[in-house]
């Protein structure tokens, strides 16, 4: 029983075969080590991530905070918004004004103005967001305005987008005149945030304070809090007073932003030099004040390592932590090595660098976490070279300096890599421009490193938790870190890795605890405690790879101990026995369910962790867990607290140890190798390895050089995440195909076919007579892809066919997946082999008919029950074979284009959507560009055809040029003509003939659809969208309107409705949603539709078809239920109905073609509101939460919203009514 299970002996674990490490006596002022120097006031410890640490300081120092969400900086802005909403004051007792702008460019403009107006101003951003601020950064620096921007430094979109960390964004700002200050850990990020603000005011110049995205921004650490007293001691009020005195005022009018002529511009640009030159001195002064106030001392450049080091690495960011600990380890073993941390990268202080660099240094590697293709080296390297050249004139005994790159896009940077760099420096002629952390088999630039090299001290307890996104594992671990960090005196670190899927995603939590500050910004590879919250990962995820010899593995198992052991695959059993692991099991799901917590096993497993790990005495740990629960949930309701406490109490009783046998039993089952439906070498050699978690091992040569990847790879990945899947009862089914339409993952499909096609069907393949008057004698099958279904149950919700005798039973019911897996898998494979129907013969104007079209978007990683993907899937069904998609960055670009696998695929002829993503802000323009290219190519083809028509046959040429391609039959006929044309051109060697042959396929209709979310369409991309619609070009725009920035976590957009709570609108949005449809309609030549597939699928279908055939721009606003709305998404269809019936989302189509004498182009497709708006709103947490936090405001906003709904419908009715005149142009210009 649990009470007899002793806590784990960590020292025993780590003493096995581990080298004892003593800390190297660091020089005063060394990074990290310096944290313990000096007169420290009573420290207040907090446990938080880097972002929160930074935001807390920035908030207290600001009066104006202009924000815009971008990963990984968003949580800093969110925190400030929430604090401001709650009325938390800044250092001077005022609540900062936090304002969300339409883009980072807008935020930069607002800040520029705010600074000129005399407000203490800040923001938080990263990556593309920082790039959008660059134009204003020049202005802000040029006008000497003390802005401080905190950047969680992130990669830039180049051959692909990356949300992860490196320094490319920050380095792109070098030329702007902004000072660049780096911090290396959450503690430093907090400290240097303050130093940056103080230095900016002192220097009168803008600062970017940056730290590694995710690695520092999201790493949770126990840190010493910077209190208000410290801020007061560091900030010089006189500097602030000077700044305020320079504000723009009519009382002492001045003029800024003049246009300057050749006579003065140059001099003016030089006038600021002395201020930039003074920056390093100011920064050091502030750092010294900070040291005096806190005891934590920082330098512009800091050296750590052997006093007579011969080999030195110079670096910035979290890598310094890893390098420093490796230096300690190597130095202990007699190696003369060291590291220089650059903190103030720009302005670069030569003297400070030279002072920090040991005179004994002979060989230096400068490591840059950025890439500048074609340059002589990356920025830090170039600066160091220039500094040494200028600082040591003559260069008689100059050290050899090489530059290297590491860590781009959050690539791991480990002690083994540091060691490899030092070894590289030992060689006779170290290579410049090397890389570390990857295998570059193309240019041979990469250094090889020992990934097993482990120098973590025995005193550090390492724990890894493998969980599922929705089971609360990460939340519980954050909670545990807080408990340990704040209750035990131990230092704690947590880092969390998520996979790229939004449904069924896996999370891996890496936790370290120890008596000293933890300086290991890299993932754990050998843990003494490993927990796995999902039994379904057994045999599928290599959880045991994280276990150190003798480690505890805690497994959530639905089986008793002996049975659990027997259900482990042979390779697991072997590893466990070989490593001497201790296997603990608990049926956490059962305990959680019994306590009323459903499948959230977090509390149960957290309790077990504390009981087993011995980090705290057991009783104390349980008391702390309960206290943390009360703190976390106390405000959410007493019953929630009670339920969680009950789960804690019930946990230990169910915890049992499984005694391990000495050997593996002969009949132990073997983990089947994952069976990917490998179709190409690329999939075999690249995609399959990414899926197997071996992406880090792929060499450079495996990568496409231009970021161009194959489509149709999601079908390779059988994720198998549904516990239940729909089971079909042909006897009840009415074959309406509504389930097929609503499925967000294209995992339930229908086909009709000839009875003879059933030959060879596997047992259990179901079919029924096809209910069709035109196709008598055919069979019909509704088939589920059991391993691709996410179990969202939308299909069952929408199914209208009930068993008359037992209405609870429908034509499809959710049934347990495992017992049917084999049968359904075989049936699915057979189903796929059944022929697709002839597209031209289908009535695609009906929902039923359209759903026999093969979807060319399937099995995306979108959330289970996603409200966006059904629209995209339908679009690919209707036009996928001639579709080009320009996709704005956001959810749709992530589930649409995030590796390792992507959902867009092709039909049996190999045709399918071609997809590309440019940026977030430019998607409309990007799509227009593609459209113009498509049009130009088609026009060129027609021109060539006209020129050489007689040679290919005048009739054919005329038919090709004048083909009607407005329907399936027309497109099919044109494809046949093009085939004939190409055949006739094969023998034509004239230049025109060859050019026409290359362009022949462009004679077939191609449509560009511009796809994105409301964040793009309503906010950041609105200017471009408006311009593109105004252009009159026949591009089609599909806005997947979730009414928030879904991808970055639910921030408010201008689409967010009145009364809804969202991030950046924590107090409930007080203004109405922008009516983008109405704005587009006012042009008169734009086809506009507002649709909701769950409310009226036939109208959605009609709108997509009409938009496609309209010879002008089209805009479709598609209502998309989202997890950010806060209700179970399987109810999305019902909720869409309520949205329409309440008038919240009226359906209509505005078709300029319909305008006639006295007739409006606007058709309302939904009735006047029949349901109270409050009923719709009551179902969603985004509205409901306001009733809890601000009931009066919720009531007021509800009344306003009801009024607005009524007024808007009345306006639409008026617009849809008979028109006195018809001033609206019927065709685009």
């Amino acid at each position: 029983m649990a009470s007899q299970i002793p806590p784990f002996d960590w020292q025993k674990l780590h003493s096995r075969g581990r080298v004892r490490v003593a800390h190297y006596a660091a020089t005063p002022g060394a990074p990290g080590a310096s944290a313990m120097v000096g007169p420290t006031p009573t420290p207040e410890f907090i446990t938080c991530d880097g972002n929160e640490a930074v935001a807390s300081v920035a908030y207290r120092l600001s009066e104006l905070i202009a924000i815009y969400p971008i990963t990984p900086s968003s949580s800093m802005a969110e925190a400030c918004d929430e604090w401001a909403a709650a009325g938390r004051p800044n250092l001077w007792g005022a609540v900062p004004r936090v304002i969300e702008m339409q883009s980072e460019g807008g935020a930069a403009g607002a800040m520029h103005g705010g600074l000129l107006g005399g407000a203490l101003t800040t923001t938080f951003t990263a990556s593309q967001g920082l790039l959008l601020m660059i134009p204003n950064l020049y202005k802000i620096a040029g006008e000497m305005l003390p802005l401080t921007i905190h950047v969680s430094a992130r990669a830039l979109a180049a051959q692909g987008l990356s949300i992860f960390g490196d320094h490319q964004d920050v380095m792109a700002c070098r030329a702007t005149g902004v000072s660049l200050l780096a911090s290396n850990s959450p503690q430093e990020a907090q400290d240097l945030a303050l130093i940056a603000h103080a230095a900016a005011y002192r220097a009168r110049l803008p600062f970017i304070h940056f730290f590694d995205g995710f690695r520092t921004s999201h790493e949770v650490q126990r840190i010493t809090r910077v209190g208000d007293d410290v801020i007061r001691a560091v900030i010089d009020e006189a500097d602030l007073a000077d700044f305020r005195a320079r504000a723009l005022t009519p009382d002492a009018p001045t003029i800024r932003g003049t246009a300057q002529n050749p006579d003065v511009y140059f001099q003016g640009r030089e006038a600021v030099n002395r201020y930039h030159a003074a920056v390093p001195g100011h920064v050091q002064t502030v750092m010294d004040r900070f040291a005096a106030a806190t005891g934590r001392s920082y330098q512009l450049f800091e050296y750590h390592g052997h006093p007579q080091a011969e080999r030195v690495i110079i670096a910035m960011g979290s890598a310094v932590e890893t390098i420093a600990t490796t230096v300690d380890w190597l130095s202990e073993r007699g190696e003369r090595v060291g590291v220089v941390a650059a903190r103030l990268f720009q302005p670069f202080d030569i003297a400070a660098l030279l002072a920090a660099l040991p005179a004994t240094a002979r060989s230096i590697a400068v490591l840059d976490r950025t890439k500048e293709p074609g340059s002589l080296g990356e920025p830090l390297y170039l600066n160091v070279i220039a500094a040494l050249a200028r600082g040591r004139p003559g260069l008689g005994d100059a050290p050899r300096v090489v530059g290297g790159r590491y860590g781009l896009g959050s690539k791991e940077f480990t002690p083994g890599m540091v060691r490899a760099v030092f070894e590289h420096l030992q060689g006779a002629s170290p290579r410049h421009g090397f890389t570390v952390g990857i295998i570059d088999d193309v240019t041979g630039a990469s250094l090889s490193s020992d990934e097993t090299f482990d120098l973590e001290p025995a005193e550090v307890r390492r724990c890894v938790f493998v969980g599922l996104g929705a089971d609360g594992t990460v939340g519980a671990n954050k909670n545990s870190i807080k408990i340990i960090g704040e209750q035990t005196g131990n230092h704690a670190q947590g880092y969390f890795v998520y996979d790229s899927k939004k449904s069924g995603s896996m999370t891996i939590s890496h936790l370290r605890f120890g008596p000293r500050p933890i300086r290991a910004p890299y993932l754990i590879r050998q843990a003494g405690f490993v927990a796995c919250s999902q039994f379904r990962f057994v045999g599928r995820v290599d959880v045991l790879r994280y276990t150190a010899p003798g480690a505890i593995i805690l497994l959530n198992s639905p089986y008793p101990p002996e049975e659990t052991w027997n259900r482990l695959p042979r390779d697991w059993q072997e590893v466990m026995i070989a490593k001497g692991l201790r296997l603990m099991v608990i049926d956490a799901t059962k305990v959680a369910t019994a306590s009323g917590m459903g499948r959230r096993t977090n509390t149960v497993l957290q309790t077990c962790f504390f009981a087993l790990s011995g980090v705290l005495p057991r009783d104390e740990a349980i008391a702390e867990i309960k206290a943390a629960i009360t703190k976390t949930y106390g405000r959410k309701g007493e019953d929630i607290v009670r339920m969680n406490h009950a789960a804690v109490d019930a946990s230990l009783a169910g915890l049992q140890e499984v005694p391990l046998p000495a050997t593996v039993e002969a009949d132990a089952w073997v983990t089947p190798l994952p069976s990917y439906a490998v179709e190409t070498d690329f999939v075999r050699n690249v995609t399959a390895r990414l899926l197997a978690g071996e992406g880090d091992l792929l060499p450079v040569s495996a990568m496409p050089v231009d970021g161009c990847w194959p489509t149709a790879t999601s079908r390779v990945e059988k994720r198998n995440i549904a516990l239940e899947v729909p089971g079909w009862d042909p006897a009840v089914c009415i074959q309406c195909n509504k389930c097929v339409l609503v499925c967000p993952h294209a995992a339930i499909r229908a086909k009709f076919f000839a009875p003879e096609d059933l030959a060879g069907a596997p047992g259990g393949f179901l079919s029924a007579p096809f209910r069709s008057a035109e196709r008598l004698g055919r069979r019909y099958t509704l088939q589920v892809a059991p391993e691709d279904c996410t179990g969202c149950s939308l299909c069952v919700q929408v199914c209208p066919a009930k068993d008359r005798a037992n209405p609870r039973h429908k034509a499809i019911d959710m049934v347990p997946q495992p017992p049917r897996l084999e049968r359904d898998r075989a049936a699915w494979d057979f189903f796929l082999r059944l022929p697709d129907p002839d597209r031209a013969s289908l009535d695609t104007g009906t929902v039923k008919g359209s759903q026999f079209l093969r979807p060319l978007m399937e099995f995306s990683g979108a959330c289970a029950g996603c409200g966006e993907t059904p629209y995209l899937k339908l679009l690919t069904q209707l036009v996928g074979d001639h579709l080009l998609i320009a996709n704005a960055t956001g959810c749709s670009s992530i589930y649409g284009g995030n590796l390792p696998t992507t959902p867009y695929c092709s039909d049996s002829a190999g045709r399918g959507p071609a997809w590309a993503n440019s940026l977030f802000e430019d998607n409309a323009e990007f799509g227009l560009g593609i459209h113009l290219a498509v049009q130009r190519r088609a026009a060129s083809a027609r021109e060539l055809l006209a020129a050489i028509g007689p040679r290919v046959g005048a009739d054919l040429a005329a038919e090709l040029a004048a083909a009607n391609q407005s329907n399936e039959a027309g497109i099919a006929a044109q494809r046949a003509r093009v085939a004939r044309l190409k055949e006739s051109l094969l023998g034509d060697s004239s230049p025109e003939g060859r050019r026409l042959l290359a362009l022949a396929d462009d004679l077939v209709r191609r449509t560009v659809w511009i796809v994105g979310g409301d964040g793009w369409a309503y906010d950041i991309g609105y200017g471009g969208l408006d311009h593109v619609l105004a252009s009159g070009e026949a591009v089609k725009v599909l806005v997947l309107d979730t009414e928030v920035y879904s991808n970055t976590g639910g921030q408010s957009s201008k689409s967010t409705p009145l009364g809804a709570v969202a991030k950046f609108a924590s107090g409930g949005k007080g203004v109405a949603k922008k009516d983008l449809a109405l704005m587009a309609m006012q042009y008169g030549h734009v086809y506009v539709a507002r649709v909701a597939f769950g409310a009226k699928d036939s109208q959605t279908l009609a709108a997509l078809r009409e938009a496609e055939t309209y010879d002008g721009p089209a805009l479709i606003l598609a209502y998309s239920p989202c997890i950010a709305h806060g209700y179970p998404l399987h109810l999305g269809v019902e909720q869409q109905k309520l949205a329409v019936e309440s008038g919240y989302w009226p359906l209509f189509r505005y078709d300029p073609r319909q305008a006639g004498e006295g007739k409006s182009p606007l058709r309302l497709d939904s009735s006047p509101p029949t349901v109270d708006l409050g009923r719709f709103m009551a179902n969603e947490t985004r509205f409901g939460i306001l009733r809890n936090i601000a009931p009066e405001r919720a009531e007021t906003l509800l009344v306003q919203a009801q009024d607005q709904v009524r007024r808007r419908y009345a306006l639409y009715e008026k617009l849809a009514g008979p028109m006195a005149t018809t001033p609206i142009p019927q065709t685009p210009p």
Partner: protein
Amino acid sequence: MNLATPYLGLQLANPIVVGASPFCDNAAVARQLQDAGASALVMHSLFEEQIEAEQHALARHVEFSAESSAEATSYFPDYAEYQLSPDNYARQLGRLKADLTIPVIASLNGSRPGGWTEHARRLESAGADALELNLYQLATDRLLGGQEIEERMRETVAAVVRSVRIPVAVKLSPFHAAPANFVARLEGAGAAGVVLFNRFYQPDFNLEELEVQPTLKLSDSSELLLRLRWLAIISPQTRGSLAASGGIHAVEDVIKALLAGAHCTQVVSVVLRHGPRVISSLLGGLRRWMEERGYEDVGQLRGALNLSRCPDPAAHERANYIRILQSWRV
């Protein structure tokens, strides 16, 4: 003429009380009811189960999908500094108390022994003049007998009475085997009165969709008869207050309920149909009727036709049933 009547130790200006209903959600409507002459207002029931369900749903939806994506570690603002389970009911009660001069009676429907007393105390401190416990629960468990259910109800009432100082009434369903006995036991547990009887949502069938749908039909005067009989039977046997609820639609209904022994009558459906002003006309009618017959005090009416005072007690008892059946002509 004195229409004042005691109820649960409160002195009501007249016997027309607005029963548990959504009127209390709107302070302006509540004011209209008072202006029309309502002597007290019973708020709709605070359903403990519903509160808990809402709390669970909120916690679940806020947490759902949190910490499952690198870009979105949450989807809602972090309301660490907000109370997420505020008592909107108590807030509304406070608002009504501030707006109105007539007594406001809070109503509570709970599911857990602990929950009842916690909520009762909260409502008391929010200013409720009295509490009406709505004990109705559907007994669908074949293993749970009527005696056990009644004993649990009695214990609940006793616990609530112990935990508050304000008077507590109990609203009963008509489906007790021995209502008179049960009322006596409730009185023993400290209940200050009973309300006869509850009306509740009853499922109806949607033949189109083959679905079961909860419905609530407004009452009519025919429902009064059941109340009259039990008021008449119980009123001589209790010292506590009695309220008639269900079927009060005309002034005659009010008078009958008083004659049967009710201290007050609760009106809801009639106000939903005709608006607050119907209360004035009911009161006017009552006054006229009393004037015409020389009554000066409503107390004179109370119980005049109950089991102990009516000329023919058998009419209230089983004989009535037999006689009616026998006189029925097909």
